[in-house]
């Protein structure tokens, strides 16, 4: 292992204007709904930003464009980050973020395919995205498509047995068109994975399941870009990027605090504190 602790390193990362802007969009949703998985969304921003800004092929005006790359947010509770990116890319108006979780909104507390342009699969119950992603990757191969499948999972989600069933299948079928990303924010709902269900040695686990494994700072956009953009089809091996992140990244009083996994009935003054802590976006 390298001497650098990627978890610590990610804490030192300074967020640029784009990262701040996207975080403010997340807070727009949080404000609109008065609730949300803030910590779980803030850890995801650079992962999704890198994918949508630099890696994925998509057409916002044709969300079902056949040649698009498929992205499944398997940790569906991080949907505010996904909604912020989809709005930013023009899949729908950013004004919709303010309707988050409202009665008539199409933006619910977990993402739903068919309702939200750009959402490939409905998620929310954990451990579903990777099996679906395996099926998509197989289907794309059968169709001789060059599109790739990206599945973003949480660290707590890796407790689910279905993830490891699907990992075996991805190896068996040599799915070079499948890329998994773990948002390893080191905090489940109750507390650190070490207190709930230890995951380490996580890289070794995935390697032994037949994956190529990259481990990096999940708030470092150039590192993410390098890991996610490299051509993979010829490798015949699925890839997993273990991205060390900080839950609540960008809002210091929420960082690393399990209480911010999910919040509801958020008062306006708390919203102001979040905005202020984030700084200008």
């Amino acid at each position: 292992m390298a001497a650098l602790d990627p978890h610590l390193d990610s804490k030192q990362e300074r967020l640029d204007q784009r990262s701040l802007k996207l975080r403010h969009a997340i807070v727009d949703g949080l404000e609109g709904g008065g609730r949300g998985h803030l910590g779980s969304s803030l850890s995801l921003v650079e992962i999704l930003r890198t994918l949508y800004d630099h890696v994925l092929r998509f057409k916002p005006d044709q969300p079902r464009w056949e040649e698009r790359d498929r992205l499944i947010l398997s940790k569906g509770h991080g949907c505010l980050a996904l909604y912020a990116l989809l709005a930013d890319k023009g899949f729908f108006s950013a004004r919709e973020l303010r309707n988050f979780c409202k009665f008539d909104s199409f933006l619910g507390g977990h993402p739903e395919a068919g309702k939200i342009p750009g959402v490939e699969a409905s998620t929310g119950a954990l451990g579903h995205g990777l099996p679906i992603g395996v099926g998509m990757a197989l289907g794309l191969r059968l169709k001789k498509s060059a599109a790739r499948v990206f599945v973003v999972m949480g660290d707590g989600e890796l407790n689910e047995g279905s993830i490891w069933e699907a990992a075996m299948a991805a190896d068996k079928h040599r799915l070079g068109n499948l890329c998994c990303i773990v948002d390893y924010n080191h905090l489940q709902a109750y507390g650190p994975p070490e207190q709930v269900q230890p995951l380490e040695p996580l890289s070794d686990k995935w390697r032994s399941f037949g994956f190529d494994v990259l481990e990096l700072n999940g708030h470092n956009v150039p590192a993410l870009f390098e890991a996610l953009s490299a051509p993979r089809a010829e490798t015949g091996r699925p890839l997993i990027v273990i991205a060390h992140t900080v839950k609540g990244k960008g809002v210091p009083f929420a960082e690393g605090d399990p209480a911010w996994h999910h919040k509801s009935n958020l008062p306006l003054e708390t919203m102001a504190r979040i905005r202020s802590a984030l700084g200008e976006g």
Partner: protein
Amino acid sequence: MRQASLTMVHELARQDKRVLFIGSDLGSGTLEPLRQEFPERFFMEGIAEANLIGMAAGLAMEGFIPYVNTIATFLTRRAFEQIALDVCLHHLPVRLIGSGGGLVYAPLGPTHQAIDELALMRSLPGMTVVAPSDASEMRAMMKASLDLPGPLYIRLGKGGDPVLMPEGAPDFVFGRAVVVRDLGPVLLISTGVMSDRALKAADLLAQKGIDCALLHLPTVKPLDEETIIQFAAKARLVVSIEEHSKIGGLGSALAELFIDRDLRLCPLLRLALPDAFVENYGSQDSLLKRFGLQPEGIADQVRKALESAPS
């Protein structure tokens, strides 16, 4: 019936490039001809039902029509959330083929006896649930399944069943009841392989001077409500007959329909398995006898119920 169903998957795969087969860890040689002819559309994916269903959903999202087969209890109990969310929530054309529906695996005990899967599948929004009575009806249903929008659960009864629906019968239509006998003050309504036993029970009752109408419901969901109501409205006694727990299956579906349609005065005798795990082994036939679901037991219970039914 199982052979008829799987052979039809091969037939459908020949007709339509979207059709593919996914099994768990089925018997050696299962669908070998399909594997030989279309190796890229044959998947044997291991004892991992959650992944099996999620993967089928992913393939369906890419435009394929997966036919998934494994033992009914594992398919419906183990992977229930995947069926609900990955398949039904997305309204995908995934076809679930449950082997050993009912008490087929009698000697293997409660882990393998599928006494609740119709209830589980029936509770899911958008799911079509079928239990054909014999191999020829299975073939007709499989042929029709290609064009069914949305998910489908197929209960496989025991193979080599007596033929109730001869070849050349009208095309299979999902949600349509089959009128096997249309006259009599007693209306028997059955599904799956129980329809053959219901017919034999009707013969026994006829010998005692009790005429029965018989509706066979290959589709448990959606119900053929109009045909059922039409027949039930003129019956002195309605009898549901199923190889399934009394909770949530055909009898429950009929009770719900009768309440909803204000037919609550029509006596409904529900012949089904009790709300209990089965404690005996033996054979499917011996267990059905134990629970009064063989023709003689059915006829006896109908006779007794008729005695107390209003005329």
